[in-house]
């Protein structure tokens, strides 16, 4: 009478299309929410999903409902103290608007609609509309990456790669070719035999018939003896490795750790670097990060040291730029790597060093680089470095950009500004 079916093995993602349509529809709201979230998020968990809250009114599927007002009677359970004819004060807020709530039958008091975006979706929204400048310029040949492609048919190979259709065709051709002469002769003999059969009985005829019969049988045996499938027939699919172009990027994080950079400033810088890193990771199959910190002299360090150890001293920015140039020369030849750099500083620098920075950038770094962005973390007025960089930016607006960050709320907008997809480029 009853059928019992195990459906657990069926796909569970029946709602995927509907979910995607929903996300698409509320793209705008979700993006706003993502923008908010990024600014409040701690740096470590940027790659986690996000809980998105959308004001419920935007999600409404409207229906006709009764509004507040008029006269209505409602039956409730659980009476304890009321008697017929009692009057009670109207509870605040209810105002008789019960009907609407009930009719919507979705949890009371839920003003907002909240749900989780998974990390992938979150990053998609985060970086939507952003693009890496000058990315198209270099699609580079990597040495390590290749893919396997079909390379024709060969007569020798691995049994697992036998091409059955081609092998059988080959065998059929061989059988036909080898038996052609025999079959032609057989046809002639058969014709003669048939003709003789119709003639009148005679001794010669009988002898000839016996002879013919013997020959026919021999020929048939020979044709039969041709092997159906021979090793020479086998054909194999061939595959070859083909190198694929791969995009690789290296990102230099350059940060000032002199005494004038407070811990909060470093935190801000770190958030910025992190965003940049995530962004590069999405755009390149392979991304490397180089951390360069500097005060009066520059040093390549690991991530931990870059963000957390503290040093004091004056500031010579050019030392870091020089080191970057050296590293690029040694390890990241510009014809193989997409090179990005982000520099964060409070703008403090030795007075006569700023022109030197400009010079290094202009002559050594920028020609090799995809993009160099400078963020000044400085709530107050600009310092010496800004002015020289400003001039640089005006002369090379495509590869050099600078922005100022005042507080945590600025990071994402500044990031967006730096990497906004520029219409004229596409």
């Amino acid at each position, binding site marked *: 009478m009853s059928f*019992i*079916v*195990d459906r657990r093995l069926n796909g569970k993602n029946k709602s995927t299309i509907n*979910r995607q349509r929903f996300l698409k529809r509320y793209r705008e709201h979700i993006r706003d929410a993502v923008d908010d979230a990024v600014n409040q998020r701690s740096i470590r968990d940027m790659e986690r999903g996000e809980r998105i809250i959308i004001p419920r009114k935007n999600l409404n599927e409207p229906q*006709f409902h009764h509004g507040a007002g008029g006269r209505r009677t409602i039956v409730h359970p*659980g*009476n304890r103290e009321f008697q*017929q004819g*009692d009057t009670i004060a109207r509870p605040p807020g209810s105002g008789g608007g019960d*009907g609407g709530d009930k009719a919507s039958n979705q949890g009371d008091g839920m003003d907002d609609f909240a749900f989780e975006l998974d990390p992938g979706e979150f990053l998609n929204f985060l970086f939507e509309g952003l693009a890496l400048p000058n990315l198209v310029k270099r699609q580079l040949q990597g040495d390590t990456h290749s893919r396997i492609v079909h390379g024709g048919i060969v007569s020798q190979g691995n049994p697992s790669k036998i091409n059955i259709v081609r092998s059988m065709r080959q065998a059929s051709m061989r059988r036909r070719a080898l038996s052609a002469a025999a079959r032609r002769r057989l046809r002639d003999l058969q014709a003669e035999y048939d003709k003789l059969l119709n003639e009148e009985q005679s001794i010669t005829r009988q002898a000839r018939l016996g002879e013919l019969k013997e020959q026919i049988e021999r020929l048939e045996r020979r044709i039969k003896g041709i092997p159906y499938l021979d090793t020479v027939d086998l054909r194999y699919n061939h595959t070859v490795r083909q190198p694929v172009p791969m995009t690789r990027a290296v990102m230099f994080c350059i940060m000032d750790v002199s005494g004038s950079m407070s811990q909060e400033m470093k935190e801000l810088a770190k958030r910025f670097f992190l965003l940049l890193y995530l962004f590069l990771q999405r755009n390149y199959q392979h991304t490397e990060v180089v951390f360069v910190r500097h005060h009066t002299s520059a040093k390549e360090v690991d991530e931990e040291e870059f963000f957390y150890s503290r040093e004091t001293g004056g500031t010579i920015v050019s030392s870091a730029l020089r080191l970057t140039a050296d590293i690029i020369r040694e390890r990241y030849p510009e014809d193989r790597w997409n090179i990005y750099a982000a520099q964060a500083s409070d703008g403090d620098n030795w007075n006569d060093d700023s022109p030197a920075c400009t010079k290094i950038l202009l002559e050594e770094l920028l020609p090799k680089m995809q993009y160099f962005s400078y963020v000044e973390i400085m709530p107050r007025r600009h310092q010496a470095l800004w002015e020289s960089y400003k001039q640089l930016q005006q002369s090379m607006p495509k590869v050099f950009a600078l922005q100022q960050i005042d507080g945590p709320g600025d990071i994402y907008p500044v990031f967006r500004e730096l990497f906004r997809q520029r219409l004229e480029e596409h």
Partner: protein
Amino acid sequence: MADHDTARPARKAPLSETSEWNFDLIALYDREIARIAHDRFGLDTFPNQIEVISSEQMMDAYSSVGMPVGYNHWSFGKQFVEVENLYRRGQMGLAYEIVINSSPCIAYLMEENTMPMQALVIAHACYGHNSFFKGNYLFRTWTDASAIIDYLVFARHYIAECEERHGVEAVEQILDSCHALMNYGVDRYKRPNPVSAETERNRQQEREESLQKQVSELWKTFPAMQPDIKRRKSTQRYPSEPQENLLYFIEKNAPLLEPWQREIVRIVRKMAQYFYPQRQTKVMNEGWATFWHYTLLHEMYDEGLVTEGFMLEFLQSHAQVVYQPPFDSPQYSGINPYALGFAMFRDLRRICEHPTEEDRIWFPDIAGSDWLGTLKFAMQSFKDESFIQQFLSPSVIRDLKLFAVLDDDEEANLEIRAIHNERGYQQVRQMLSEQYNLSIHEPNIQVYEAAVRGDRSLTLQHVRQDRRPLARDKAADVLRHLHRLWQFDVHLESVDQGRVVERLSIPAATEEPQP
């Protein structure tokens, strides 16, 4: 002692001892429950199809409103996201079961459930809900259980096809608009003549052509020089009588809809009609199913088929299901249909089996009658509104401590109109019954006029009951959707005691002279 032994059938060995389930056990329990339900209590059911699914699949089923095959729409995605979210954060347990009114009757069991829960679900869904679907007059008249799956498949394919031909966006817009009017896509009073999905498919082509012809006929512009046409203008209103089924009216009369758009309107309307009986029988349906899982499992216990541990687990779940928080509890969100329905069916059985003096006065016809027959009659022939009207007994009112509150915006205070006492029973019963009357619960809105010979505008009328107004901003949103379907001006008049008290127009009338 010996007497006791002979009165009862010998106790059998329990079917299982642990809470683990497997497919053999499910089949075994199902067979036993079926035996008791059919042979002992004579429940009439569709064949069952029991499907074991995972919790993710349950969420999928949830978000497609329990339809096994549904067309794609973002609102289902929204629902899925909402359910998934609540479930992940542990704020909501998933329902143990979903059951679909079809033949065979499809019931979903979650793999996470224990054996007692699976047995409860089988009893509840496969024999409770199932017999309700098969027996209740609303389901019998309005839905065709054997054809619904086919129709859903047809609808899904049709809509997917439309998306391919006309773009996802265009289809989505029509669906959005139809969904907004879904509650007004049912015939409340007319009876349908059911067609099977097979015929439905065959007729669709035909309909497309003939419908368009018919609409064009209606909207044919008359040559202006014919003098008598002008005179006829004021004499006839179209439609001659107000129409309650807005979607039907649109399907048949909207001037500019493409044939495929009309078909989509029709699909949504059919959906609405299919779900309409469920909306009208929440209390009865759940009450009936709950009553039967309670009765069937107790019967199994009496036969010795299940252990005491099983019963404890079952009773705990059962108690949760039928819990009714009092009105001042933070958990309170209206009357729990399971609690009310279960209490009523159970009390009905008590009235039949052990009637008191009070029962004999209130229910002279059924007090002391055969309980099984009486319950089946009640299940078959009523909907929530009339069921409560007929069978809500004083003892249930007392148990639930029901009381009625009058909220009148012309008074400063709320007034307690009736409570669970001798003077109040009748009134409480009356008011509770009205509370479940969908035509009172939902605003009464009908098509009043389509200006066939004028500006082609469509006028709806909302007849106010007890001065209750419409939620205006929502109504405006719905009208925007209606406007999308109708494509000419739409108006909504709110009528109180024969006078138009409020008027809403989309697009908003800018210089309409106020009377």
